[in-house]
């Protein structure tokens, strides 16, 4: 236990992740917008080009079917909006987080989350977002946003979340 590497994370991202986590705790229905996620401020209040603008007005996450990494039609719309916004505001580097629900084993779901993140990343690249701005990370089933033991939560947890991590490379 001598060296513990510190997570070097942009404060903006920490704030965003924290508020999402709190919202996930309180809400069991599918969040359709950031207003549902309790980010506050209302849709119009976010400064255009801000991380809040991205989350509130564009939508930072897409959802998947069980044991699938196929980009659904509703997800294609969200990713299309994301790509457009990211192409407009090029100062951000992007990390796409892939997640799985709890109905799979730990290691397999880690791989499944990675595949979902890659699918979302590839879709964004296909819509013109520069590949060198995009990184992916999988959290498998380790970071559920909705906590209950039925399908209403599992469907929210099968997700890829596009997070903005400060100045791009």
């Amino acid at each position, binding site marked *: *236990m001598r060296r513990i590497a510190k997570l070097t994370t942009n404060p903006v991202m920490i704030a965003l992740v924290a508020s999402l986590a709190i919202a996930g705790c309180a809400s069991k229905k599918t969040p359709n917008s950031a207003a549902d996620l309790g980010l506050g401020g209302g849709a119009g209040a976010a400064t255009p080009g801000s991380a809040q603008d991205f989350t509130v007005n564009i939508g930072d996450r897409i959802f998947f079917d069980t044991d699938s990494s196929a980009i659904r039609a509703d997800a294609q719309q969200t990713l299309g909006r994301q790509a457009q916004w990211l192409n407009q505001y090029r100062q951000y580097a992007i990390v796409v987080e892939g997640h799985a629900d709890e109905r*799979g084993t730990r290691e*397999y779901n880690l791989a499944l989350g990675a595949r979902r993140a890659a699918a979302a990343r590839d879709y964004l690249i296909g819509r013109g977002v520069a590949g060198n701005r995009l990184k992916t990370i*999988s959290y498998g089933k*380790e970071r559920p946003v909705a906590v209950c033991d039925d399908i209403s939560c599992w469907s929210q947890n099968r997700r890829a979340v596009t997070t903005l991590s400060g100045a791009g490379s």
Partner: protein
Amino acid sequence: MKKLLKSLMLVGALAGIMGSFATLPARALVEIDVNKGVVEPLPVAITDFLSGDGIGTEISSIVAADLQRSGLFAPIDKGAFIEKISNPDAAPRFEDWKVINAQALVTGRVTQEADGRLRAEFRLWDTFAGQQLVGEQFFSSKANMRRVAHIIADAIYERLTGEKGYFDTRVVFIDESGSKNARKKRLAIMDQDGANVRYLSDGRAISMTPRFSPTRQEITYMSYESGQPRVYLLQIETGQRELVGNFPGMTFAPRFSPDGQKVIMSLLRDDGNSNIFAMDLRSRTTTRLTNSNSIDTSPSYSPDGSKVVFTSDRGGQPQIYAMGADGSGQTRISFGGGSYSTPVWSPRGDLIAFTKQSGGQFAIGVMRTDGSGERILSTGFSQEGPTWAPNGRYIMYFKEAAGSGGPRLYSIDLTGRNEQQIPTANYASDPAWSPLLE
């Protein structure tokens, strides 16, 4: 561990007490046939070891608890004992033990040596044959007395069942605390009975899937401590850690080879699929074993190192595959209804434990190495991640009941009997059993 081992010396067998015993047949009359389908637990009397303080009672209680949890022994209530053992060097009054149906009797004594160490002696008696089966003594510090108790329990288990014990072992696992959507997941280690918990990580980053080296006091596990999920090695006694390999993407699902010289694991490809690689820890060379457009993960070696079982969804959903240790001959072996993952080869070599999902339930089961003879041991809302006791008779896994908030560790007999929760302070997952300590 080295230091502890030096201080824990088996000095040798205690001689038979009475000369007449030498003429008795060496083979015990009291034995458990562990290969019968259903084993009736053997009634044993475990007396309090004599000592000046309470440590003798403490040791015999740990011995009794170990034997009871195995499901193969039924320690008799001490209230039923007729003879009070006052001199463990003398033969007991066998009639007094036969009449309460004690098939075997354990006596012992703990004394302090001039140098401050404790001497623990025990004798195992066959009451119906009227003979001593085992007599041994150990010298150690008081701090090691739990280990001494487990070693004594192993000696009794081994003598009466004919197979190796598993009580002097540890379990590395993930301690889980906090709410489910912000859960702290710390690496921890404990004795197999839940005692002596020690944390091996501080919980700032998620750690998971620890696995013991079969040959050293070393574990491999995955952690987010560098930001990206990666596989590490950790020397348990020194705390020294190192990254395994230097790969661009996520590395996960590590497990040692039987000789402890290789780590086999999954590497994430840039296209989102995962393949299996083996890394030689001395030469640092990596060998690719699979190359499919699918998720290939959870690899586990056969005990002779010649084969590997793993999970793959190349056929559409997770199933178990087997291959040669060089990646040759990849063949699906799970064909029951549902999906299969986390295959783990038994230390005896004849079975593979797995997690199965079907009908909205999770199950832990075993199958033969060709996939035949599937037996489900435990079914429920959520359970996964089997690990074998080193003697191949018990399996530990983690299980979560719906609405319970988090997982706990359980062990079960290979026959599907005797499911027991392992006591842990917090939620716990990903158990991995150590080999027998030496």
